[in-house]
């Protein structure tokens, strides 16, 4: 019973923090993109536009929810939920920090420590593609359908490269559990040994969550918004939230796999700073990086995206894995 109560409390806290981060990541993105384009970004709602996410959220509730006449209604309504739920469920396996003691009870800073965490993450990000696919298909709209098909093909292609990249990390840590992978990085982070895998993972991850320069499924200029073209009101907001939740969880997973999770490198310790602070700082910096590259890179053409995934990332990932294997066998 204690276990159940603790789990529900943890889930509630993480869920709330995640939703808050999603809301404020949208503001961060709009502000920072604005600055990159030499304008202010939202600055009317509250000081520095800090109430903008709240205003947006309220507005979504009070907007008319248009359901076009010839859509596939049940799928059309469920698709945003199908997009959002896996995006949120990914955070279940992410360890945020060491254990802390609250009211004399040791509480681990993760929702659950799954021994197949990496598989769970890959599986859920695969399911996330269904949201966009079903949404675009159910809209019965040509732009939506093209966006959906592109999204599906792109996601599965890059999931392959991502899965291949992770093999070398798993070889080094000998575990699929994120908690164990982080625990193995107290002294040397994985990025020191696997810089190539890190770059591959970031590229594949950006493509998998459909972010610029891989935002083909949305491609405003040619598809007018892609798979969510027929969506309005709260349904559109759910797609939007799923995208940002994916972005945050990608940053968190990258931190756990490559950047030492809540650890500082070389076993450094700073007194009086809780370890979760380092985790949050790294995730924040990665998100800033994701926004920065969105403001910097132009969008790739679709054939270039598929070429990059299948003809470059895949072979490099395989070679990286082989090199890792040879080196590890040689030094025993």
């Amino acid at each position, binding site marked *: 019973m204690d276990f159940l109560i603790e*789990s*529900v409390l*943890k*889930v509630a806290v*993480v*869920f709330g923090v995640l*939703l808050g981060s999603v809301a404020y990541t949208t503001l961060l993105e709009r502000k920072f993109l604005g600055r990159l384009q030499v304008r202010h970004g939202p600055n009317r709602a509250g000081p520095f536009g800090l109430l903008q996410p709240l205003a947006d959220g309220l507005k*979504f*509730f*009070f*907007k*008319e*929810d248009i359901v076009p*006449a010839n859509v596939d209604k049940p799928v059309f309504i469920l698709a*945003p*939920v199908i997009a*959002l*739920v896996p995006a*949120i*469920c990914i955070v*279940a396996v992410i360890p945020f920090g060491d254990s802390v003691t609250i009211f004399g009870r040791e509480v681990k800073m993760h*929702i*659950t420590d*799954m021994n197949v965490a990496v*598989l769970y993450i890959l599986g859920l990000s695969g399911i996330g593609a269904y949201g966009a696919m079903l949404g675009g298909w159910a809209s*019965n*709209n*040509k732009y*939506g*359908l093209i966006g959906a098909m592109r999204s*599906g*093909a792109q996601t*599965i*292609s890059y*999931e*392959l490269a991502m*899965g*291949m990249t992770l*093999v*070398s990390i*798993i070889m080094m840590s*000998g*575990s699929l559990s994120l908690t164990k992978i982080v625990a193995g990085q107290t002294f040397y982070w994985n990025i020191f040994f696997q810089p190539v895998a890190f770059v591959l993972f970031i590229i594949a991850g950006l493509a998998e969550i459909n972010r610029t320069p891989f935002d083909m499924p949305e491609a405003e200029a040619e598809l*007018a918004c892609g798979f969510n073209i*027929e969506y309005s009101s*709260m349904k559109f*907001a*759910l797609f939007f939230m799923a995208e940002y939740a994916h972005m945050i969880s990608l940053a968190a997973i990258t931190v756990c796999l490559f950047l030492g999770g809540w650890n500082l490198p070389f076993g450094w310790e700073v007194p009086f700073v809780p370890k979760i602070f380092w985790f949050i700082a790294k995730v924040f910096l990665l998100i800033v990086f994701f926004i920065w590259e969105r403001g910097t890179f132009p969008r790739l053409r679709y*054939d270039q995206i*598929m*070429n990059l995934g*299948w*003809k470059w990332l*895949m072979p490099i990932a*395989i070679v990286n894995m*082989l090199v890792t*294997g*040879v080196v*590890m*066998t040689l030094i025993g």
Partner: protein
Amino acid sequence: MLQNFVPVLILFLFAAAFGLGVLLISSLLGPKRPTAAKQATYECGMDVQPDARRPLDVKYYLIAMAFLIFDVEVIFLYPWAVQFKSLGLFGFIEMLVFLFILLVGYAYIWKKGVLEWE
């Protein structure tokens, strides 16, 4: 063991309840004034050609099949990678044979033009 998955179920219920809940609330709060023009399929103001459900390029199906094959092979690599240190040189050579077969298939679909998008 199974206990590790209970929190995942709880999180799933939270997320599903949240998603369906906000949809319900917004459908209660938002106005409903449907008109024929509003409910028409959006096509940049042009007349809507009847079928959006047209046959898709065969490329997508080829990519999906190639993905299935290779993803299953990647999943085979995972248990090996977890046990890599204890398997030693013998396990590594065994996996090289497996990878070689995988690469033959990869070279084949490349040469056949499955990966070409014009």
